[in-house]
């Protein structure tokens, strides 16, 4: 594995304009994550955590500053190239599970891999089944998402994000919609899988216990990380 940071951003600024009002959200953020590192981000609601994840995940363009994935700058990439890189480097886990309702669990797990066009269909089905077993849903591959509980859906989403072997997982309050016990179980699963596969993890959370598990804890206030 390369020594480049999994992700590196500098002087990142982003503001939203609604009518005449300019709302600065990010104001010159510097941030790095080493390969396999686990970083947690906390902050008040509305302080810009989701915005930050979107910008470093390449889903939104910053007003200024730069984002590099594995040493590759994003501003040099066109839309399609950016989409391709995102599929290879980044796995995303959301607060609400966002599974595709029309396809079964196994196909949902395969989705990210199909989009990334990695490996052959046969290999990926086998890998997806293994991954489902890892998240404890080995026998649920044929079920439709609507028939799963919230915790089970989040496990599927984690399996999907990890199947492409990304360098970095961006998780936006993955336990936010779950009760405490299920949330803890999901957190255990996410952490152990990331550590095992040496995938870097950026976790946005309101749960101080979960945040404390990280190698590094950051807090976002007024558009910057507190030192």
């Amino acid at each position, binding site marked *: 594995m390369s020594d480049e940071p999994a992700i590196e951003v500098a002087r990142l600024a982003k503001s939203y304009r609604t009518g005449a009002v300019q709302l600065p959200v990010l104001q010159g953020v510097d941030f790095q994550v080493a390969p396999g590192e686990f970083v947690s981000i906390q902050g008040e609601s509305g302080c810009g955590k*989701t915005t930050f994840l979107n910008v470093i995940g390449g*889903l939104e363009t910053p007003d200024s500053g730069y984002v590099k994935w594995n040493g590759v700058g994003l501003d040099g990439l066109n*839309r*399609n190239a950016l*989409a*391709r890189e995102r599929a290879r480097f980044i796995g995303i886990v959301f607060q609400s599970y966002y599974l595709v309702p029309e396809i079964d669990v196994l196909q949902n797990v395969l989705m990210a891999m199909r989009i990334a066009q990695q490996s052959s269909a046969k290999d990926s089905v086998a890998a997806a089944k293994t991954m489902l077993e890892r998240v404890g849903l080995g026998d649920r591959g044929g079920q439709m998402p609507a028939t799963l509980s919230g915790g089970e859906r989040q496990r599927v989403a984690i399996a999907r994000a990890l199947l492409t072997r990304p360098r970095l997982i961006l998780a936006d309050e993955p336990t936010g919609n779950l009760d405490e016990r299920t949330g803890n179980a999901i957190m255990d699963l996410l952490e152990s899988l990331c550590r095992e596969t040496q995938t870097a993890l950026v976790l946005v959370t309101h749960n101080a216990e979960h945040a404390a598990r990280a190698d590094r804890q950051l807090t976002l206030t007024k558009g910057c990380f507190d030192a």
Partner: protein
Amino acid sequence: MPWYAYIALRHLFPKGKRLPFFTFMSVTGVALGAMLLVIVISVFNGFGHELRKVIAETSGDLKLHNGRIVEDYEKEIATLLADPRVEAAAPAAFGFVMLQSRRSPIFPPVQGIDLNEEEKVVPIRKYIYDGSLDDLDDDSVLISSGIANTLRIRVGDEVDIYTPLMIEKLKQDEILLPRQMRVAGVFETGFNKIDESLVLTSLRTMQDLYGLGEGVHAIKIKLAPGIDADQAAIDLQDGFDPPLRVSSWIDSNADFLAIIEFEKRMMFFLLLFIVIVGSFSIATSLLTAVVRKTREIGLFAAMGASSSQIAACFCLQGFAVGVVGTAIGFVIGFWILSMRDGITDALFWIIGGKEQSMEFYFFSRLPVHIETTDLIVIAVFAVVIATLAGLVPAMKAGRLRPAEALRNE
């Protein structure tokens, strides 16, 4: 299968669920249009096809002529018969006469036929329903059913024939004496244009009436079964020097066939609107789907889908609806065409008037001819229109910004 095609398929046909209303309605719309197009166009083709067959049967497949008088026709017939594709050839002379019976005159076209050869080219015996071909000699005529009906002539009646040549003579102060002829038979071919008004007489009489000497106006050619008339006309032409020309009887009836062709085109464009209207429902339903699935679209983008792939996902749904709808429309269309006898009978049973209608269209059953090129044109139009309908929602989906799509509630 690429992921976007797979998702498109599952949107249309979700696993383990009932067929979505959208799929059902839009497929039905396209299918109805395709079905009507297949039926109507095939019936129009049927009319055209039947007409060609009747023309070829009543006039021969091809004719050899020079625009004036072919003097040495025996020699030309020998040349024609040497070609293996030519089954038979018979001379003929054409003109107009004034035919008078009980003081009412009409001006029908007249044709002189070789009594020995004609039957080999045109199955004339089978058309005669009153009198007999064997009674036709140099002093008698065969008349078409239309003439027989309007002048109320029967077999055995005498009619007066005046020719243009007689009028020429009249100018030179000669006495005008009509040629009296006996009606030897009445015929009906099934081809309106002929049945309305035609007089047949012997070639010798015709040569005499028109002052042709030993000449004729044309040689009618019957081709061996399965020979393409248009190609044969081109090939046979090589054996003759201009002004002698080999041409198809279809050409002489081009006006008639052109009307059918024109009507067919009009119907095609009118019925195409059913497909277009059907496609509007595809477009609106897909637009709603794009709005409803905004977060799902954002998710695909977050997983690294390009905007063209996302657009393709929705465009393919329009395409798939087009393909499935066309296929179903074709199947139902063919099925209805195969059941047409029962359906027309049922219709006539309800509205009545089967005999009159059939007579008017001079076919005993609804003619149908399925043309592959027409099917291809219909299929291409239907699929392209449905795909275009998917294009607008697809572009909307492709333009969604991932972050905003994900924030969508």
